[in-house]
């Protein structure tokens, strides 16, 4: 799940970059939220 989110973040950040106006800002918020969730999953669910 965390890895899948990381991949979505990677692709999504590129897509968001070419956006303008509301779409850009909504995309930035979405990417950052997904990134935070992914980091949280990696941190709290990692066995290392």
């Amino acid at each position, binding site marked *: 799940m965390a890895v899948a989110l990381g*991949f979505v973040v990677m692709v999504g950040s*590129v897509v968001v970059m070419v956006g303008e106006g509301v779409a850009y800002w909504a995309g930035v918020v979405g*990417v950052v939220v997904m*990134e935070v969730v*992914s980091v949280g999953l990696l941190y709290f669910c990692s066995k290392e």
Partner: protein
Amino acid sequence: MGNGEVIAFFVQPPPQSLGFAAYGLACLSGALANVVCDEFLADLGHPWARLSRRGVWLRVGRWLALILGCVIAVMTSEPAEAYARMIGVAVFGVIAGCDLESWHVPPDWYTIGGAVGMVGVWGVAGGLRAAADAALAQAFCYGAMVFGVAALKVAAAGDIKLMMQYGAVLGGIVAVGWAFVMEWLVRVVWMFFWALGVASREGVEAVVARGRGLRAPHGPFAWLGVVLWIAVL
């Protein structure tokens, strides 16, 4: 940034700007962090000894990344942007030199703190849009590293923190994208010569066997990729 602007960014030459004052400041901070960590902290005993650095090649790689980052910041930025990047690189140098995960704090604290801090620096220097661009750049680096570590097995887990800081310092996903393209070109050439060296000594089968466990550092390679990009342009 619209589609036309993105294309224009890709074909424009990097502007020359900024003197060497900020460059020296960043180098000095990195050098200070490394010297303090290497020469003093280990002798102070607990708890300071925990901050001392171990692992020569890891330190050399991060030190190289810092130096290359300074060069990039000077060569690719307008003056106001360059100052923001120099501050980011300086912070990057200090935290890379200190390895703050040795403290009894969550291991990702200094990674996330460094990335968020650098996005904040961009916000102060270039406004909300610049901060958002930097956040996108570090998010891209984070996603790429997670995917590289977990799915492709081509990166070490420690690369994630380096790449998050790298994306935040570079402050633009277009520059990060170019860095990734050039990084992989550098990586292919590096692996070719690595395989050639192993094959000449131990044979082709040894190359295949050892290649499966090979972990090449993404962070320093990415910085090197940006430098190569500048050189090509």
